[in-house]
């Protein structure tokens, strides 16, 4: 096994977690009072973990760069959270959720972790309801469900288009209860700049107070990294502007392996880019694909006329439209998984059928759904012989009740009414399946250092299914870490507080200060955003929805050159001992410039197509991803060795005992 021991418990799949919980070491309640845990990031994973640790009795310190834990970007998740409750009686089960998730991830995730996720999914819903999370309900007062991509059951629980917000506020409330009791100390507007290791164990972090610029030392017996994903590497993405990889990357630099960095999710339904000034992209929830139909014109000349503004989409007859997902994937239609839907949109736009000025947009059309709902509403309201206009009005009301906030968001950004004319959408970077390598305990390769939520790599393989991120974040925080961290901390009941005046803290703090001084003293010619945008362009063009050897090799070189230029010529105004948003950005972009190169190397190394990683050299004659299970059925885990080009690749072989590996088909 070597250093990559995944620590998967023995025994039958469905019994592993229970058996494991029965066998691991526990810390008695009195001793928990003497143990400190640091949690970096306060989204679903970090917030739920912090609250749970504090309830168990540990002393917790949380850190977030925002002014409140409630603002972590989990708040922006729209569509829903999966759970195998089978409330709809449509054949769902833990096994089916497990199966769908492993298949959706294109057989690049760990069976035991995913099964555990499915197993605790139902508990998440129970937990959240008892916390007062206002999920959508039907008229009988019971919980409502909807469907998401890549599955054939309705298992997604939701709160309008604001599910992430409601779940995060639930975790935030649980945190507040513990802050009130003094069991959590919440450090807001603080950023983790480095990890401190003492005697081989993670024992603290160095932070910067973002208001005063002060560099601070914080110690603990264990450190949890729950700082989210790294999609902002692409500059334009659906991530929050401040989302960054600093905590995870600097942990990687201290010895934690980085797993599958090239596995990125490009979400099919986002509002297209409108111009050079654009700072971020906005997602339109996948739940819209329950009712929206995706199409482009059948004829190139129609697409051109639409681009030139001479033709309106509503003028195009049904037979002149190409509902390409329904055509290519009749079984799943518009609800194919995200990677498949994104590539199909790119394929149509590359072939010249794009429908906006830039040629990079397809339609998401609600007309059929509006008429269908309208007719149903007319029937149940006892209205007979109503005209189309009235039916349309009724239908629009139903659609508004389901997706109102999304439609409003679209209209504000694009300045078009999506009830009257189809939405325009295009894929955008949305999530990273890759992240810090963790074992079954969610522990990284550094003892005492854990990673949870999007910051780890564990459950989604090469492609994440919709409504699974919220599930994983809360599963890690509420139900997995509170058990597994005890196994490590059981050895620390006699350790006592970790001092911060040690040589280890001195050294790491000096490294941090040197780095800040170097950034402040470059005094070059270009702003941080200049470099970030350049990096984003390289990533999107060469490491985006489709990748090839030539482009990836160029990307590796271009990113290395850009990084060199950055350190020589970046310009950071203001002072380091002051509130300084440019300095904050500079530190984050410096890390992206290292991660970007490793990302390209990882994509180059993986000579197959799987999930969101599509290598042009490896595809079927129909243009579908061609996996190579013989040679690439592994997790790539990179060890930091100085420059990104020197990183050392380790492999964790994936073992499938409960699922037969098949070509993923949604046809």
């Amino acid at each position, binding site marked *: 096994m070597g250093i990559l021991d995944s620590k998967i418990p023995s025994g039958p799949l469905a019994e592993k977690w229970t058996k494991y919980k029965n066998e691991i070491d526990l810390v008695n309640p009195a001793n928990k009072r003497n143990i400190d845990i640091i949690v970096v990031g306060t989204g679903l994973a970090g917030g739920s973990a912090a609250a*749970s640790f504090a309830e168990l009795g540990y002393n917790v310190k949380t850190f977030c760069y925002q002014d409140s834990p409630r603002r972590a970007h989990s708040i922006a998740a729209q569509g829903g959270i999966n759970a195998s409750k089978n409330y709809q009686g449509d054949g769902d089960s833990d096994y089916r959720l497990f199966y769908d998730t492993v298949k959706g991830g294109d057989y690049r995730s760990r069976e035991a972790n995913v099964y555990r996720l499915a197993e605790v999914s139902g508990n998440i819903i129970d937990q959240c309801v008892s916390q007062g999370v206002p999920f959508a309900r039907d008229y009988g007062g019971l919980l409502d469900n909807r469907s998401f991509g890549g599955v054939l059951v309705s298992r997604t629980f939701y709160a309008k288009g604001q599910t992430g917000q409601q779940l995060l506020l639930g975790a935030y409330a649980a945190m*507040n209860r513990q*802050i009130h009791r003094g069991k959590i100390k919440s450090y807001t507007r603080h950023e983790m700049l480095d990890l401190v290791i003492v005697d081989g164990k993670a024992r603290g972090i160095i932070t910067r107070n973002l208001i005063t610029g002060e560099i601070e030392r914080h110690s603990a017996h264990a450190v949890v990294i729950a700082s989210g994903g790294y999609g902002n590497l692409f500059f334009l993405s659906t991530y929050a502007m401040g989302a960054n990889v600093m905590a995870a990357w600097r942990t990687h630099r201290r010895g934690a392996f980085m797993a599958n960095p090239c596995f990125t999710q490009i979400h099919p339904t986002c509002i297209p880019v409108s111009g050079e000034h654009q700072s971020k992209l906005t997602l339109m929830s996948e739940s819209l694909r329950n009712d929206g139909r995706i199409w482009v014109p059948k004829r190139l000349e129609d697409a051109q006329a639409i681009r030139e503004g001479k033709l309106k989409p509503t003028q195009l007859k049904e037979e002149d439209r190409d509902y390409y997902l329904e055509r290519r994937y009749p079984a799943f239609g518009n609800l194919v998984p995200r990677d498949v839907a994104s590539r199909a949109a790119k394929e149509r736009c590359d072939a010249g059928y794009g429908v906006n000025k830039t040629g990079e947009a397809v339609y998401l059309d609600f007309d059929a759904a509006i008429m269908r709902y309208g007719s149903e509403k007319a029937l149940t309201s006892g209205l007979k012989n109503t005209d189309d206009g009235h039916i349309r009005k009724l239908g629009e009301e139903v659609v508004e009740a389901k997706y109102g906030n999304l439609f409003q968001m679209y209209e504000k950004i694009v300045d078009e009414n999506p009830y009257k004319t189809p939405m325009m959408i295009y894929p955008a970077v949305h999530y990273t399946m890759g992240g810090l390598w963790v074992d079954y305990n969610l522990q990284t390769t550094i003892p005492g250092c854990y990673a949870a939520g999007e910051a780890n790599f564990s459950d989604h393989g090469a492609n994440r299914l919709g409504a699974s991120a919220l599930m994983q974040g809360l599963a890690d925080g509420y139900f997995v870490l509170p058990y597994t961290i005890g196994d490590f901390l059981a050895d620390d009941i006699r350790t006592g507080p970790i001092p911060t005046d040690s040589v280890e803290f001195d050294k790491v703090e000096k490294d941090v200060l040197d780095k800040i001084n170097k950034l402040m003293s470059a005094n070059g010619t270009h702003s941080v955003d200049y470099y970030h945008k350049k990096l984003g362009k390289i990533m999107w063009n060469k490491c985006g929805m489709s990748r090839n050897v030539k482009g990836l090799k160029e990307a590796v070189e271009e990113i290395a050159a850009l990084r060199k230029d950055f350190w020589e010529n970046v310009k950071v*105004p203001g002072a380091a001992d002051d509130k300084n948003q440019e300095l904050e950005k500079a530190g984050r972009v410096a890390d992206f410039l290292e991660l970007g190169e490793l990302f390209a190397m990882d994509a180059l190394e993986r000579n197959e197509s799987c999930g969101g990683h599509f290598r042009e050299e490896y595809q079927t004659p129909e243009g579908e991803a061609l996996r190579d299970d013989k040679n690439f059925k592994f997790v790539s885990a990179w060890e930091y060795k100085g420059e990104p080009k020197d990183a050392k690749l380790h492999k964790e072989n994936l073992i499938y005992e409960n699922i037969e590996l098949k070509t993923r088909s949604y046809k």
Partner: protein
Amino acid sequence: MKIYLKIWRQKDASSKGKIVDYTMNGIEGDMSFLEMLDILNEDLISKGEVPIEFDHDCREGICGSCSLQINGRPHGPDRLITVCQLHMRSFKDGDTIVIEPFRANAFPVIKDLIVDRNAFERIQQAGGFISVNTSGRTVDANSIPIRKENADKAFNAAACIGCGACVAACKNASAMLFTSAKVSQFALLPQGRIEAAERVQNMVRQMDLEGFGNCTNTGACEIECPKGISLENIARMNREYLGASIKG
């Protein structure tokens, strides 16, 4: 478009601030308001000046970080949006725009357009939760049926993003809408009823301690709330508070 900006600049909490004039050319309607400020900041950086600091994060109207008072209105002229969703098409060539931080005694300025909203945190910590442990060992979710109407109302109250626009809009700098949104969410749900009396008393006490003003029912908070949180919630909180006080 040519736009004239008058922006509040303040070095830190203890320094005095002032309005500084900037002129922007070539602004397009499709730009968001914050992208316009990004361009201004790039320009300031290239001139060697210190850029303007403002809070922002998700840029899709849900995190609640934005806190700009634009021409005297929280989040600017449009209704039901945050600043990050405001686009320059809402302005016209030659307009002058005044940008200030949210103003309230309980929201001290940290720097430029950034304010300290920790008072909101402390109100939530005082009682904005249901006291259940996160063990997952609770009852099955569907064993607590809830009338759809109440579930929807609770959701509407829970949609508050904690931005503080209600306080900035209020002539008394009252935090009643913010506080009542959380009180209402839980008061409308059977799970929240159990601690309803303690919750409303604790949260109101903290709200008063923070120095927010009283409510005089002008309704400005509801008008400026980016999430359309209803004044009904304030009425519900008053009822809850009265009920809790009578019971003792």
